[in-house]
């Protein structure tokens, strides 16, 4: 399965899972990153390692338009540059201290990150709305099979509980796949709950398949 072959944008989180003033860990092409949303609602992404002592920045906290490291409070702006070092309050941090900012886009309720600078926009997800994100301990192929759906550029399209769904799949590690689930825009809350339950079943089947293959 060649995932997302035509676009440099990688779908890594659902907008609703990162409210204003929060940070989450994510994996971009097997590299750990932090995705955070400022108080004003701007989404940012950067490496998940504080240049000071290597602490995961996703353990940190968002204040205003900045991300702070939990360890010694080094504070980073949306451009990734260190703005403030609490232990040396009068020092203006040199521009070389930064946390590796990444290009990020938010579109159709999905947060997309690119490894390199790109001019294009992420692909559109017409007629769909985000539901939930799950991690499968399985390869994308096993998820395709378990869902009974068809392969599309971004992952899998299938019908679940009578509703059209789309699974954006992203391999994070061997036998570990992030799955962002989108459903038809018109899906009712009740049907959303049904689909969420049915997804757990797809995960059980996909993981069972992966285990069998691992044992063989």
């Amino acid at each position: 399965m060649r995932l997302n072959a035509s676009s440099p944008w990688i779908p890594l989180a659902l907008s609703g899972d990162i409210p204003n003033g929060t940070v989450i860990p994510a994996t971009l092409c097997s590299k750990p990153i932090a995705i955070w949303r400022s108080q004003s609602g701007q989404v940012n992404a950067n490496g998940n390692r504080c240049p000071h002592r290597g602490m995961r920045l996703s353990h940190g906290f968002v204040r205003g338009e900045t991300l702070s490291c939990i360890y010694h409070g080094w504070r980073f702006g949306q451009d990734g540059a260190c703005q403030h070092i609490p232990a040396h309050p009068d020092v203006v941090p040199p521009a070389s201290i930064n946390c590796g900012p990444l290009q990020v886009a938010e579109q159709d309720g999905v947060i997309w990150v690119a490894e390199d600078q790109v001019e294009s926009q992420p692909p559109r997800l017409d007629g769909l709305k985000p539901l939930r994100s799950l991690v499968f301990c399985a390869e994308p192929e096993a998820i395709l099979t378990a869902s009974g759906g068809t392969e599309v550029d971004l992952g899998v399209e299938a019908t679940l509980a009578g509703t059209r769904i789309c699974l954006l799949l992203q391999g994070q590690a061997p036998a570990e796949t992030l799955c962002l689930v989108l459903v038809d825009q018109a899906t009712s809350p009740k049907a959303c709950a049904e689909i969420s339950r049915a997804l757990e079943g797809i995960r059980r089947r996909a993981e069972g398949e992966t285990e069998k293959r691992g044992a063989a």
Partner: protein
Amino acid sequence: MILYDYILSPSCYKVRLMAALIGAPLELRPVDFHPGKEHLGEDLLALNPAGSIPILVDGDLILSESAAMLAYLAGQYAPDWLGEETATSRAMVQQWLAFAHRLTAALGGARLVEMLHGQGDLEALQTAGIAALRELEAALFKRRLDGGTWLVGESITIADVACFPYVALAPDGSISLDPYPSIRLWMRALRGQAGFVEMPGIHRRHELAPDPLTPAEGA
């Protein structure tokens, strides 16, 4: 009310956290759990023959189960935290209190193996822990669909407090919390409650304190 307490015990923390959140007075009596094994000494075995901590003593009442302690504190000082007085709500609170035992066995078990070189099948404990976290994530996602934040009903209950510590400390047992966005949001809401207290491994939300870089108004 005296709590026989150990700072690194998530079960003791449940009771400290509950008391702090509802403003209940609690006298702490530190127990030398490790390395002293004071909980297995004559004095504490006389209070609790099971040899476990926490132990809560209030006059003649002696409790040795943390879920019972949460119910007692809430009953005394904040009955709202017991949930609504409907059959469904009461059953759901009991459901999550019992579920919290699974968290203790699986996530707590993995944590003991990893942190205190305890005995046990780490892989089996982690597998059971992940199964429990997935169940919690699915339930909390369902609550989000309904516009809810907490495990039961419209406001926080003892069910949330009972489940929170071992979940938050899952990484101590080498179990990642990264795959669970709904659990992350639920923990964030709990850590944002007035009166929230920390324990080693569970920190407060620093962004809720005034920004030291922003001069206070009127200063």
